[in-house]
């Protein structure tokens, strides 16, 4: 019984016996901080029984040192000064536990990230290490024995976003036997990929690889697909999220519609009149439409902004007649809000394309034959508005086409980042243009980035196929002809940085390789899901290398382009990774949480209710019988806001209690 040490030396009564360890971290710390001096200083502080410096505390011998001292010196508190607790707190807690102490009788001092790595003066860095150590040594005295809390994980998963990433994640999870809710904002899943003709570098047909996956989603018994729907509220915490989904009325009963499209034919609008979103406005549709032929679900949707019946209620409703006794069309539909419970959430909300109008010198929106890469994509697609014919606005076939790369990427004036796919995407389109039209193709690039598998080869192929590459950022696009051959053409003015002079290159069509940007509502979405964004606005992963699909919020994962620009293989890889992370949690069945919860000392609470509205997790409720507030530990996330706010000091918090923080304040100021 003395080996587990849970009685004598774990208790808060009796002498406090502290072991202090300072880590050299090789030279990382020791090069600037005089570790032996800090150890000597700590040795003289009240309660310190052992004080050591050691080369690598996180190594096995380092951990063993702690455990040995706990046994030999009957330590009941341990302080380690080394790196950030965000990195190794768990390591040392485990070591302390292995030594027979409650793991929470431990405090970590960050003297690497917060000291040796950021300072230059050894004396000042050492002084700082001392005062931080002092604070921890004072603080650890107040630590109490705690246990990790286990939170059960609800096995269902929410996937937000029905692009290729979300689709893949949903199918992966569903195949593992988990129930998945897939929520997509648009009337159909498919995302950007559904608009692509072929995919680089293999030039295989996008639809051919995507459509089966879309069908799988539709037919999978474990997947509940909600299109034309948006998440509007997220409550709860890992394992127990309560998500409210807004289902927009499509005025068509999804269960009853068979996708026969008779209603579209019968619509009072005889001709399609409104820009078709799927074709990026290159074609028209009616108020009742199906987004694209392979849409999933195969259900029509009625555009409330265009439909006369929805807008005025004064239409002949020819569509209703066409639908006849199927009665799938339902103008009484109202927006619905559905609440679902899930344990994990995968965010696959994708990206939006850069608006080329933001770079006016490229003439997008001004010259009809300046198009974006996605517009060209629709033009080359056989199912597209032109049936795969690449034509200018006046119907001619272009004789020469220029691709301008890095539009809204790698540009200090717009977006600094590389969108990663545009080089390859443009070369793919260039090859298709060559193939379809035999036009001259010139690609204006800054650097060709072709790091993916088979991509460099694809670049080679492009060169071989006679595509011209001009290195330089295009200065402007103009229709002001200075020479005869420029007349009726668009002139690209660029400094050819390889040739070393400014060139004017006339072309018939210009394709802008627009970059990727975070979704317009990324900020609202991340707030709703309690994630962070990097400065660029992409959702922030927990760790760029070690936890690339995790977020700082447990149980919320990110995959695909919402995390940053990437191509289809990378997106799918992340989708799989995110699904695997979720599966790991689900199959474990529970998650261990820091026991840093707050609790109300009942006899101290006056029932003033000041704390109740403060909790964003509704962990605090008012017990009308006792006339006291109480905290549901399972809901408490440990932020401590209520602790700071309790006007009578009647809320305490594990790991961050007042006396612990006050003692830290005293400690950091004790060493001048």
């Amino acid at each position: 019984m003395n080996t587990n040490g849970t009685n004598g030396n774990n208790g808060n009564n009796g002498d406090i016996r502290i072991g202090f360890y300072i880590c050299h971290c090789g030279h990382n710390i020791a090069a600037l901080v005089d570790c032996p001096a800090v150890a000597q200083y700590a040795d003289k502080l009240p309660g310190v029984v052992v004080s050591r410096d050691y080369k690598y505390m996180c190594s096995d011998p380092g951990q063993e040192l702690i455990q040995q001292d706990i046994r030999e010196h009957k330590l009941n508190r341990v302080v380690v000064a080394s790196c950030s607790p965000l990195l190794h707190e768990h390591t040392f807690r485990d070591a302390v536990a292995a030594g027979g102490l409650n793991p929470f009788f431990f405090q970590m001092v960050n003297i690497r990230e917060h000291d040796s790595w950021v300072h230059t003066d050894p004396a000042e860095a050492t002084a700082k290490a001392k005062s931080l150590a002092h604070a921890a040594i004072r603080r650890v005295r107040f630590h109490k024995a705690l246990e990790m809390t286990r939170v059960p994980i609800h096995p269902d998963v929410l996937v937000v976003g029905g692009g290729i990433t979300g689709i893949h994640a949903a199918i992966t999870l569903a195949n593992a036997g988990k129930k998945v809710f897939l929520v997509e904002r648009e009337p159909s899943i498919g995302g950007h990929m559904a608009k692509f003709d072929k995919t680089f570098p293999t030039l295989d047909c996008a639809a051919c690889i995507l459509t089966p996956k879309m069908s799988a989603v539709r037919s999978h018994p474990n997947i509940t697909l909600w299109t034309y729907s948006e998440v509007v509220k997220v409550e709860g915490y890992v394992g127990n999220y309560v998500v409210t989904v807004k289902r927009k009325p499509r005025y068509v009963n999804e269960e009853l519609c068979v996708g026969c499209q008779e209603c579209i034919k019968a619509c009072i609008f005889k001709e399609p009149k409104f820009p078709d979103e799927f074709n990026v406005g290159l074609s028209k549709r009616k108020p009742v439409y199906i987004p694209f032929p392979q849409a999933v679900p195969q259900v029509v949707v009625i555009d409330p902004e265009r439909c006369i019946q929805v807008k005025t209620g004064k239409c002949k409703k020819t569509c209703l007649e066409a639908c006849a006794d199927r009665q799938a069309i339902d103008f009484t539909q109202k927006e619905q809000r559905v609440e679902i419970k899930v344990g994990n959430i995968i965010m696959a909300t994708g990206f939006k394309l850069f608006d080329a109008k933001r770079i006016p010198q490229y003439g997008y929106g001004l010259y009809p034959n300046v198009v974006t890469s996605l517009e060209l994509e629709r033009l080359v697609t056989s199912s597209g508005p032109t049936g795969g014919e690449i034509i200018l606005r006046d119907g001619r076939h272009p004789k020469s086409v220029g691709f301008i790369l890095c539009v809204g990427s790698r540009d200090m004036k717009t977006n600094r980042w590389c969108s990663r796919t545009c080089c390859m995407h443009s070369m793919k389109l260039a090859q298709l243009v060559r193939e379809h039209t035999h036009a001259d193709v010139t690609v204006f690039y800054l650097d060709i980035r072709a790091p993916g598998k088979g991509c460099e080869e694809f670049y080679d192929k492009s060169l071989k196929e006679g595509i011209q590459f001009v290195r330089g950022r295009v200065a402007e696009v103009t229709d002001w002809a200075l020479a005869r051959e420029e007349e009726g053409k668009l002139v690209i003015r660029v400094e050819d940085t390889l040739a070393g002079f400014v060139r004017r290159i006339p072309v018939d069509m210009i394709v802008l390789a627009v970059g990727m940007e975070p979704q317009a509502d990324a900020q609202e979405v991340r707030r709703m899901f309690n994630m962070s964004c990097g400065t660029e606005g992409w959702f922030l992963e927990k760790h760029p290398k070690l936890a690339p699909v995790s977020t700082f919020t447990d149980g919320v994962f990110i995959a695909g382009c919402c995390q940053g620009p990437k191509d289809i293989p990378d997106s799918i890889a992340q989708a799989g990774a995110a699904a695997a992370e979720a599966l790991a949690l689900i199959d474990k069945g529970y998650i261990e949480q820091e026991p840093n919860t707050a609790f109300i000392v009942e006899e101290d609470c006056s029932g003033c209710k000041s704390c109740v509205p403060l909790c964003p997790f509704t962990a605090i409720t008012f017990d009308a019988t006792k006339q006291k507030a109480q905290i549901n530990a399972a809901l408490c996330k440990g932020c401590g806001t209520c602790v700071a706010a309790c006007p009578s000091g009647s809320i305490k918090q594990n790991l961050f209690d007042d006396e612990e923080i006050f003692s830290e304040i005293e400690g950091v100021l004790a060493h001048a």
Partner: protein
Amino acid sequence: MPKPKIAFYWCASCGGCEEAVVDLAEDILGVVEAVDIVLWPVAMDFKKKDVEAMPDKSIVATLFNGAIRTSEQEEMAHLLRRKSQVLIAYGACAQMGGIPSLANQFSRDQLLRFVYEQAPTMADEPKSRPQTSFQNNGHALTLPQFRNVVRSLDQVVEVDYCIPGCPPTPKITKAAVGAVLEGKLPPKGSVLAPDIALCDQCPRKGSKPADLSFTQFKRPHMVKLDPELCFLAQDVVCMGPATRGGCESVCTRGNMPCSGCFGPTSRVRDQGAKMLSSLCANVAAKEEKDITQTLSGIPDPVGTFYRYSLASSLLRRKVDLPIDAKKSS
């Protein structure tokens, strides 16, 4: 067996504490029978030398009210500390500095200059001020030195217990004196009153909604106060949540909010900071200018949150005030 000796003394206070003891008259009769009151300036002829002549620790308990502002008061605090086994800070002024310690926002010179030179009714030319020692026709007259800082009793001498309130209620006084006499005292340093905030006993407690947030704060004169509804629910700042109970909610019963005279609970180091924290956390606004707008309803945070506790607050005094070392004022 001789009766235990009890003393009362006052310093920078209004006399309300003394009145409070007088008001208790009929109730503490039993107590009074049991004790020998050796010093009570309000009721008895007092000679400092008589106290000096007492053996040290011969007074069982001294109830000391008032803040400390003059050298004379300091002397008396030291004297009574020496002579008393138990020294009790009686009332908000002794416990926390009280309202007189709001003067800690001003320097001694500002104070004396205004009172003796700048007050609208001051007529003397040339201006003069009272002197700590003064010769008048060979009559040597002295006044105690007026200190730079107003202090709570425990900032001058060690204090064993506090009885809070401005003034303390008969009920808690009675209970405290009883505890002294019966030797049933709690751990040293305790405040002899319930260690729970006022809301616990406020009759309006039930009327406070559980989801209250503030879009504005109204000063009491700007709003017709509902006699039943929680003041905070009326957007009127009430110190009740941050103030120790035990006063029987007299102010809220008088349809005015608590102003905090019982001080904080034992778990709070700085009453004002805590109340500020609680109120601000519950402000609804998110935009900086809207927050500013809401908080403009609290025009005097120091006077509002530290009405009685400025001397004992963490900062104690406006920190940039000079110390006037001159002996004469």
